[in-house]
């Protein structure tokens, strides 16, 4: 449990003045992650994407900590290389033996899709790193194309709503389960709307001697079509509707760390109605599709509740 008073004393290692949009959650993810790290030295690497291009426009940088980017699909392999250098140089006495933590960022496109192999390899090899997927559920940097993290029914520019199609046809991939299946010591899902939960998870991950992974849901207000001031509320609603369960898997043990507000599950429409990417789903002709999506969310929610040993909140 992080204390806001203590956290407020931590140095800001991602500065303001970066070029992310108003209401974008990626900057919040980066800032909270580094605040969570406290004064532990960190090296940050990032996949190509909004976070990277908006914080490192040459000759400026928003990073007050070592920051490196090379390509889109290799954030995890990059962190592997940095960690390997760290181990080697310490072993040879070429650098001082002191803790440095390695944090890799990637969006959902760079993590769920093009970077999945690189991530899987890094997790399997056991490099000590925290991989943070800032998941806004589509390729937002290139203009809102569908990824395998895009939810069923969401409209994206490569899964648009048209005369015969109603947005993305497939449910999203369960990446956190895939990473948990690597038997890493720590994997979690989080949202940016609950700083305490997220920061606690980052701290746990950074204190874990091995590969760790956090999948944090964060809105892209352009891609989601919501108001910039509603970003935190949007992801809260994702939890309330049980669309995005917030949990952790620590050494194989599942634990739900956040529950729907009021102990009651809201219908998925409560999450959808604030976002233009879903607006077609609430129209009468899509009632059956909406019911199918609700059924899919319910089934997955029951499954995760069972894994966490929780009574299913209905």
């Amino acid at each position, binding site marked *: 449990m992080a204390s806001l008073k203590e956290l407020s004393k931590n140095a800001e290692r991602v500065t303001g003045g970066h070029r992310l949009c108003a209401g974008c959650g990626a900057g919040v993810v980066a800032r909270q992650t580094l605040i969570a790290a406290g004064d532990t030295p960190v090296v940050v*690497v990032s996949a190509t994407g909004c976070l990277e291009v908006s914080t*490192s426009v040459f000759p400026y940088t928003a990073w007050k*900590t*070592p920051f490196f980017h090379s390509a889109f699909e290799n954030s995890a392999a*990059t962190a592997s290389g940095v960690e390997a*250098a760290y181990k080697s*140089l310490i*072993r040879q006495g070429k650098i001082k033996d002191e803790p440095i933590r390695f944090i890799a960022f990637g969006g959902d496109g760079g993590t769920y899709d093009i970077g999945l192999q*690189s991530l899987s390899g890094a997790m399997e090899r056991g490099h000590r790193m925290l991989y943070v997927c800032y998941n806004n559920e589509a390729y937002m940097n290139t203009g809102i194309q569908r990824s395998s993290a895009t939810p069923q029914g969401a409209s994206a520019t490569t899964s648009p709503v048209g005369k015969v199609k109603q947005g993305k046809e497939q449910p999203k991939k369960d990446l956190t389960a895939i990473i948990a299946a690597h038997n890493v010591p720590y994997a979690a899902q989080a949202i940016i709307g609950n700083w305490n939960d997220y920061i606690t998870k980052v701290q746990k991950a950074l204190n874990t001697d091995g590969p760790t992974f956090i999948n944090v849901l964060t809105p892209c207000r352009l891609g989601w079509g919501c108001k910039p001031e509603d970003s935190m509320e949007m992801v809260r609603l994702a939890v309330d509707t049980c669309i995005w369960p917030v949990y952790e898997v620590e050494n194989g043990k599942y634990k739900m760390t956040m529950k729907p507000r009021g102990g009651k599950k809201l219908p998925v429409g409560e999450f959808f109605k604030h976002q233009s990417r879903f607006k077609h789903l609430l129209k009468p002709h899509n009632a059956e599709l909406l019911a199918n999506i609700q059924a899919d969310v319910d089934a997955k929610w029951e499954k995760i509740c069972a894994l966490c040993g929780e009574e299913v909140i209905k």
Partner: protein
Amino acid sequence: MVKPIFSKGKIVAKTGNEMMAEAMRQISPDVVAAYPITPATEIVQIFSQFVADGKVPTEFVAVESEHSAMSATIAASVAGARAMTGTSSQGFALMWEMLYIAAGLRLPIVMAEVNRALSAPINIHGDQSDTMGARDAGWIQIYSEDPQEAYDNMIQSVRIAEAAKLPTMVTTDGFIISHCMAAAEVYPDEDVKEFVGTYKPERYLLDYKRPFTLGSIEMQDYYFEHRYQLAQAMRDAKKIILDVAKDFKNKFGREYGFYEKYKMDDAEIAIVTIGSAAGTTKAVINELREKGIKAGLIKIRIFRPFPADEIAKDLANVKAVAVLDRADSCSGTFAPVYSDVISAMYANGVTSPKTENYVYGLGGREIDMNHIKDVYMHLDEVAKGKAQASKTVEYINVRIK
């Protein structure tokens, strides 16, 4: 009986791959990230055994692909490590994106590359299509004729890469050099270590008290300058390569330059080629010389940076020259080495020699002494005005209907 040139040298019988792995052991890089691929697998396999036996302090990262191999090597280099990798063909192709990034970031990575044909059709044998395709990637390219050169080039490449701040690849012809055993000289560990020295990066990620950002986005306002600087670094690398070769000769006794000239002083007809075919060519030259035919050879060692002015000068007095390429460019015109040689000659006002371009040996297709002899016989006729030089690329030992 082969005798050592260096006073403390030792003659061994080793393949190209074994010699490259031996050089890597002696260089003792901080990080090696690699993935297996025929015919380069042995290099990292042998090296892994050195790691397993504690003979090197290297952190070996057995990555899940060549893309990650180059990504992790790049990251290790940025982090402050002396970092190396090895690959071939398809693996090299999978690294393609990262090759350009390694160069653009000016990282002194060294790669052991075994030249192999590119798919399709899939083929595991030697040709130079893989690295020739990356000739614009911003990597220094050093080609080797035999296991000795592969070893010597690896040792020199560390110094070259770090002085030029350019990634450097050292190649051998797949199977022909990588897997064929030859007598070669190895030097004591301490002498190699002394020659390569220690790596002192100007700045590195793990130096967290001096944080910096690397891999920024650069738009119309800065990108061009950085790409210009990369191209200029390649031009400047020529001097570095010669300086390192000079030091190498002073230390170990073997002489290296941009290319090797064989009987070029009075040559009237010449072949320019790269890699293992040079050995065959030398044997043919010896026969032809006995018959009074003044044949010569230029065997290119450094293809990037391309020694344009030097080659043009050395070809100025021949009557006819054939460039033998072990890669085709599918450009509709000529193959890569020929294109560079011709540009070099024209830019230097060397227009009198007649020129021919041959593509040979793709997918490991045999090239023997008779093939080379045929080339020289044709050049002889062209030189004497009895035959015309072809205006298109010609092919050696391929069935064309």
